[in-house]
């Protein structure tokens, strides 16, 4: 433990003593603002502005094909969304998808990163192989896996039947469709977490492994006691990114099953798209998306509180205080 603190201290420069500097020179502030201006303008125009307009729109019976905000509806849209079984089902489908994809994407990424780290030769090949699917656009991934999942003719079915099991109705069975989409997503986005873990693994000093080997630790103990604890920060980052990304899922459902079979894979974003753009009811869709925004905000807040305690702990250890 002590050696870790010293190692970190060696990397960080000693803090500069003395009185705090007075305010920064004015010109730096202005040029900073000018550099930021294009981004801020676009951000306000295309993200903040529409979000606020959507919030306003959710209180009206706005239609996509009629001009203006139309008649005031008060909280009717919200009441309809909260009372709509379609909305709650789609929310549950999104959460179920998050539950199905987040653990494999975290655990498998870690496992493969550790394995790829240990390969003596050809490490570049494994890094490329695991990361390449991430580069593909969602439509390409969806088409590839639609071929694989074709009943009776697809490769996935042939693999399953060759080991003697009966082929499930991959995308046509209500219980299986989400699992099939989860498998597709894990294959597709594993590479990103894999790369994050690789970077985290390389920050762990070699001396720790040597020291633990001298103390008699086997490889499995090294992983459990050295690698995983020191990857804590990376794991926190991977998990929160993965949860947020899974909550926003849309492409796979839309292209591969169109929310089917029987609406069992329709995610919240697809529900909002269906009612807002296909059925023209943008006011109601704005209300549903505001409710979803609150859900995501709640989950992020919970996560922030959980990790804040952890990162306070790390800061304390690194600074040598407490």
């Amino acid at each position, binding site marked *: 433990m002590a050696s870790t603190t010293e190692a970190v201290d060696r990397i960080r420069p000693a803090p500069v003593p003395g009185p705090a500097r007075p305010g920064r020179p004015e010109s730096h502030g202005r040029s900073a603002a000018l550099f930021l201006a294009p981004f801020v303008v676009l951000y306000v125009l295309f993200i903040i502005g529409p979000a606020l307009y959507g919030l306003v729109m959710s209180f009206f019976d706005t*239609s996509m*094909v009629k001009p203006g905000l139309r008649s005031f509806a008060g909280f009717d849209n919200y009441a309809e969304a909260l009372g709509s079984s379609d909305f709650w089902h789609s929310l549950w489908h999104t959460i179920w998808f998050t539950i199905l994809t987040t653990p494999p994407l975290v655990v498998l990424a870690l496992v493969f990163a550790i394995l790829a780290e240990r390969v003596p030769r050809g490490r570049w090949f494994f890094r490329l192989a695991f990361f390449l699917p991430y580069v593909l656009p969602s439509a390409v991934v969806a088409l590839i896996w639609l071929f694989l999942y*074709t*009943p009776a003719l697809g490769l996935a079915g042939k693999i399953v039947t060759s080991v003697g099991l009966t082929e499930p109705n991959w995308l*046509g069975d209500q219980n299986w469709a989400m699992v099939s989409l989860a498998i597709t997503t894990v294959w597709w986005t594993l590479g990103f977490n894999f790369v994050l873990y690789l970077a985290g693994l390389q920050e762990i000093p070699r001396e720790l492994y040597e020291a633990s080997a001298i103390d008699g630790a086997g490889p499995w103990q090294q992983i459990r006691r050295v690698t995983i604890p020191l990857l804590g920060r990376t794991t926190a980052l991977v998990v929160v990114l993965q949860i947020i990304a899974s909550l926003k899922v849309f492409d796979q459902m839309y292209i591969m099953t169109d929310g089917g079979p029987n609406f069992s894979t329709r995610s919240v974003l697809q529900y909002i798209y269906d009612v807002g*753009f*296909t*059925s*023209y*009811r943008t006011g109601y869709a704005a209300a549903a998306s505001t409710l979803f925004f609150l859900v995501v905000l709640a989950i992020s807040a919970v996560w922030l509180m959980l990790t804040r305690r952890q990162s306070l702990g790390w800061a304390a250890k690194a600074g040598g205080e407490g």
Partner: protein
Amino acid sequence: MTAHGPHRSTDSAPHLTRRGLLRAAFAGAGFAALAGCSTPVGAGLANTRLDPGTVDYWNLFGGGDGVRMQQMEDGYRKAHPDTKLQAVTLSWGDPYYTKLSLATVGGKPPNVAVSHLTRMKTLVQAGLLQELHPDDLARHGMTPDKFNQRAWQASLVDGKIYAIPIDTHPFVLFYNTDVCEKAGLLDSNGQLVPIVGEEAFADALTKVKQVTGAYGATHGINADSASCWRLFQTFYSQLEGEVLAENGTEIVLDDAKAKRVLDYLRSLTVEKGLIPVSDYQGAIALFADGKAGFHLNGEWEITTFQTAKMPFSMTLVPNVFGGPHAVQADSHTLVLPVLPGQDHAQLDLSLGFVKSMLDQSDVWAAGGHVPAWQPYASSDAYRQLNPQHSYAAAADTAVYDPPGWYSGSGSVFETIMGSAVGGVESGQFSPDVAIAQIRSKLSVLAKTAPPV
């Protein structure tokens, strides 16, 4: 850096500096932007007009008839070499209509677009389509008497013209002539003996299954709510049942009739294994491979099976439930979305394109559809077109989807109905559960105030 040892480039030879690279990149980007202003991407970014003398055309034909539509587009290009035709094919169903609506609302619609007759009315109510005036149409040779009257009357909204029907496309029965001959189902002319009644149809499928060793018939079930709805609507209409009334605000589903149809479908798929659970493309592939003797689909896949060079023919869907013959169908129409700032020349170009499509009705009919353009439909050439002519009568017994703002081909109404039917056919729930689900989902839509 220069103090230690040599570095890669010497000072005398020209080498790439950062500023040089940035300057060249900006110059290249600027040049590309100028050159690209007239292309669609450039025009979209710079918000300039496409070249005048361009016809922008959107359609949703992806299957066998997509091939025919491309032949017709090429035919137009040959006949009008100085007009540029930009044709885009989009995904069938809701994605197409959502994009078309959004593009029209955003002021950048195509000049001409395809629309199903059942969806066209909602588009009119949403104010997205231009009214077509009889004198403009007459100038291009399109007068009401030249169209199939059933389709023409159905496409009028309050007596005004918003769409030009080009065909009616019913649900039909494809059959493999070799397999059916071995099963003893063909008559002396090599045509399928008419099948009437539930047992007769199930018998025919069983005989065919014995010949193929695999299945009797196929149709799209997985992720294909449209095909499931069409089959259900065909049988349900043979029992004279209806689903919606009063423009979609009332549900008049007859539970007993619906249960009868669903029970029958379930017996063919789950209980007797005569129809396998497959998706749209899989159903086509199984029939084309000869693993099934029958295929229930729209007539537009005729080109697919002709390309596969398999022995097949087509006929009307059997009158399984007795009663008057009925079959689910819709019509394709060509519409002109509202285009701000459209001038007379552009209108003439668009209408000229529509007329050209009608003039090529022979190619379109070869793609399986029953043409609405009478100069071709009543001609000898069409009468001799086989097997298209054997189901042309379906255009007169066609049952369109019930009118409603959420109804029509590829709409949420079809998705709800088709998902429930598909769930019964794949054995995931019982007909009672399906009917309850249909009622609960449709009642939400029926209660909702239409956004158009």
